[in-house]
């Protein structure tokens, strides 16, 4: 799913290359901390290279594998909160609160 240079991240691709925040947030809530930590640890050192790779293309005309890589970077952002702040998937003390992202920009 990912560009050849990022084959080391391929094990995370099928689970985390998700196009919408709604899907990424749901995946976060459904995933054990250890798995999110693994994604975080794998992608953070590769993030600069991944951003530079995606930046080779116009944002509105990216090949599919680069788009997947960008979506994986979005998932890096999503799991950074459980990993860096909370030590759990959900924001603490927010059991009853919902905030849905109804529309978001691409890609």
């Amino acid at each position, binding site marked *: 799913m990912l560009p050849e240079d990022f084959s080391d991240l391929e094990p995370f691709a099928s689970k985390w290359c998700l196009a919408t*925040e709604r899907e990424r947030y749901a995946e976060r809530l459904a995933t054990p901390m250890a798995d999110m930590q693994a994604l975080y640890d794998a992608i*953070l050192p590769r*993030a*600069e290279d991944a*951003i530079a790779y*995606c*930046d080779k*293309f116009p*944002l509105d005309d*990216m090949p599919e594998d*680069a788009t997947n890589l*960008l979506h994986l*970077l*979005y998932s*890096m*952002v*999503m799991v*950074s*909160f459980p990993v*860096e*702040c*909370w030590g759990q998937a959900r*924001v*603490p*003390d*927010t*059991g*009853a*609160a*919902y*905030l*849905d*992202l*109804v*529309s*978001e*920009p691409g*890609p």
Partner: protein
Amino acid sequence: MSRVPKPPEGSWTQHYDLGTAPISYEDSISAEFHQLESEAIFKRAWLNVGRVEQLPRNGSYFTKELAVAKTSVVVVRDQSGGVRAFYNMCRHRGNKLVWNDFPGEETNGVCRQFVCKYHGWRYDLDGALKFVQQEEEFFDLDKADFGLVPVHCDTWEGFIFVNLAKEPAQPLREFLGPMVTALEGYRFGELTERWFYRGPVASNWKLYMDAFQEFYHAPVLHARQTPAEWSAPAQKAGFEAPYYRIEGPHRVVSTSGIRPWELSEAQRKPIEAVTRSGLFGPWDAPDLGEMPAGLNPSRADPWGLDSFQIWPNFVILIWGQGWYLTYHYWPTSYNTHMFEGTLYFVPAKTARERLAHELAAVTFKEYGLQDANTLEATQTMLESRAITHFPLMDQEVLCRHLHKVAGEWVDEYRAESAGVGI
């Protein structure tokens, strides 16, 4: 001892003559008061319902559910490119005119005319009734008398407002007043990358406004959003805004900012350095030219944000890092409302810019969820009435003002109603 100067009276609260006594939140736990707010506030004030970019071409429309006024409006770009609003209601049998699948859900799209699902009556984009099915069987029906019913609608800086009054007491720009209109010139029209969040909140609408118009809570409630090297001293220092301004029913708080790129690695999260972004927005701000005179009144450098609390339920929050967001709080009952948060950026041109926006947006939601959940906890206990009066400190001056204005508008309505024997 405050770190930033206070007005000569010694506090912002006294400067704006708001009284210093503990206040009641009866206005947030009373069904009767809420009924009055509907008439006194939401059917009289100008209400922001969106932006002109949501209507990109003639025939573009969106609907807005206004549960607080038990109505729905449809906002449309008309045949000559103007923006109009109508009650979303067919003149024939009262069916809601524009909706899909679920009558209570908002919708948007593009059309040449509005067609009622029920009997096929058609209206053009200017609201005129153009077609009646089996017209010859009606009795003395003049189509000219049965156009859509208009709602007062005006725009300011691309923001679309409606007013449900028969005749608004003031034109929009006068209602906004000089403090808000001093934002004119900000390049709202260039910040078209839009992120629209929505969520139901189990509290009165004013309690969520309170949550976002004071930052006294920030170092405590949000402490864990930042590393301890940052949050511990921040909590010890507490929060002080350099500037508050109140004018008419509207309010502004302005804050100083940070330069996250100058912090040590221990003071910020790794993801912030990787994406060059964070709560305050992208580290690499777009060039938006000169800021309008009404922004950053204390000339803070770095400047954090200005939050314009526009009466009754609309907030424009402009960040120093070149983006802005809006909040809307739409009452659905005395103890529930629908919250909307909309983020606006200059459209990302590169993946790097887009990723920086992603972190700012995800951070916004993490904070928003924390803020939202304290509200149900507050609402339920306020309703117990075990305690009826609550102290507010000087950084909560805008909360004090909001509840005062709500009381004033309701009192004025009551007095007028009594005067005309309603």
